[in-house]
């Protein structure tokens, strides 16, 4: 795919004007380096607010943002025989997974169905922001438990989704929030599915591109996904957190460096390619035969959106 711009590096896109459609498609992706930069900038602001975000490093290379917070959620408690629960503010509701049909009248037959009450209660949340190589986007993992330490089940988490998103969730709950193994910790976490990230990121990234400005991908992304699962993102993040620095592919753009044949550059990126932000090496002066543009050090040759996925 000659002429295809390097996906995943937002600032590079400003240089590529020959194929706007492909640029738009690829602009929704985030490379890992930019992910880290955006996270660090978010972290700085978080520290100034005492907002509770921290950076956790795993295996010496992969890291993620982490935050715990108290929020509200809808949790269940089992009703006793008189139909009472210890919670005074209960409501009789049935979850997404239960059927309110004639089975309930048949006392003896289906003993596994229990009548539960759902109530609003304080929930302890733990949020993790990880980078997904497969989707080339950030992904939000989270855990939720009551103050007594009981983990919420999936249905309770679905019930706790912000009302603004409830209808869409109820339409396709399994496509929205499910439980998965945390890629780095190996523990069970809830995940907000990332497959549609590009859809809601696209308007912002496209506008930024047209206006020759950058955005902090993580801040924008978090402002959309956070409220779904009770994570508050104060407005000041959207005004105070800067964008990641430009990669040094600015003005003197040698023509040979711009269109890089992605599949034919099997360079081992781990052999320290220029880290885009920290060393301002002009691309033309770097003696890199395969490609002279500062390729973001993702773990594989930049895949086109359809091509081979890294990792």
């Amino acid at each position, binding site marked *: 795919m000659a002429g295809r711009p390097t996906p995943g590096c937002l600032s590079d896109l400003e240089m590529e004007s020959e194929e706007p459609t492909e640029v738009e498609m690829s602009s929704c992706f985030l490379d890992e380096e930019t992910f880290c930069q955006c996270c660090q900038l978010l972290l700085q602001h978080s520290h100034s607010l005492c907002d509770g975000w921290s950076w956790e490093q795993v295996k010496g290379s992969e890291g993620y943002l982490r935050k715990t917070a108290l929020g509200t959620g809808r949790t269940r408690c089992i009703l006793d025989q008189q139909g009472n629960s210890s919670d005074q503010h209960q409501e009789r509701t049935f979850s997404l997974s239960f059927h309110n049909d004639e089975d309930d009248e048949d006392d003896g037959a289906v003993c596994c169905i229990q009548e539960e009450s759902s109530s609003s209660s304080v929930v302890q949340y733990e949020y993790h922001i990880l980078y997904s190589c497969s989707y080339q986007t950030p992904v939000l993992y989270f855990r939720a438990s009551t103050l007594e330490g009981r983990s919420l089940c999936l249905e309770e988490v679905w019930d706790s989704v912000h009302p603004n998103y409830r209808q869409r969730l109820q339409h396709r709950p399994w*496509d929205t929030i499910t439980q998965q193994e945390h890629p780095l910790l190996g523990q069970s976490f809830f995940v907000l*599915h990332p497959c549609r990230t590009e859809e809601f990121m696209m*308007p912002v990234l496209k506008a930024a591109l047209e206006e020759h400005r950058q955005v902090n991908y993580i801040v924008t992304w978090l402002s*959309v996904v956070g409220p779904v699962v009770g994570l508050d993102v104060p407005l000041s993040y959207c005004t105070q957190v800067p964008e990641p620095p430009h990669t040094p592919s600015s003005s003197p753009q040698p023509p040979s460096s711009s269109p890089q044949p992605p599949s034919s550059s099997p360079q081992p990126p781990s052999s320290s390619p220029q880290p885009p932000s920290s060393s301002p090496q002009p691309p033309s002066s770097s003696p890199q035969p395969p490609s002279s543009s500062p390729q973001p050090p993702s773990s594989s040759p930049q895949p086109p959106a359809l091509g081979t996925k890294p990792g």
Partner: protein
Amino acid sequence: MSDNAESPTETQKDEPSTPQQPTEDSGMADDKKKIDVLLKAVGDTPIMKTKKWSVEKGRTVQSLSQFISRFLKMEANEQLFIYVNQSFSPSPDQEVGVLFECFGSDGKLVLHYCKSQAWG
């Protein structure tokens, strides 16, 4: 602001006879103050015939979002996204008045909206 309307517990503590309706020229006149919101469609999202709306300051983003969704006759499987400054999405619980104070220009708050089959 609409603190009284959104804090039912406070209302109960007050004497029931206390009128919650603001008098004409009391300090509560601010409650009725509205801001101008300009709604702009993004991508191939349907464009609203009426783009400029006068919205009470205390109204939440969620309430506005629901309004737009109904106006556009969106389906259950569709999600509306709203953007400020085309750079971030405001929390659904955020009041539009606050957004106007922070991000309003030329006497109005410009919000971009986008419809999508979210999450799936």
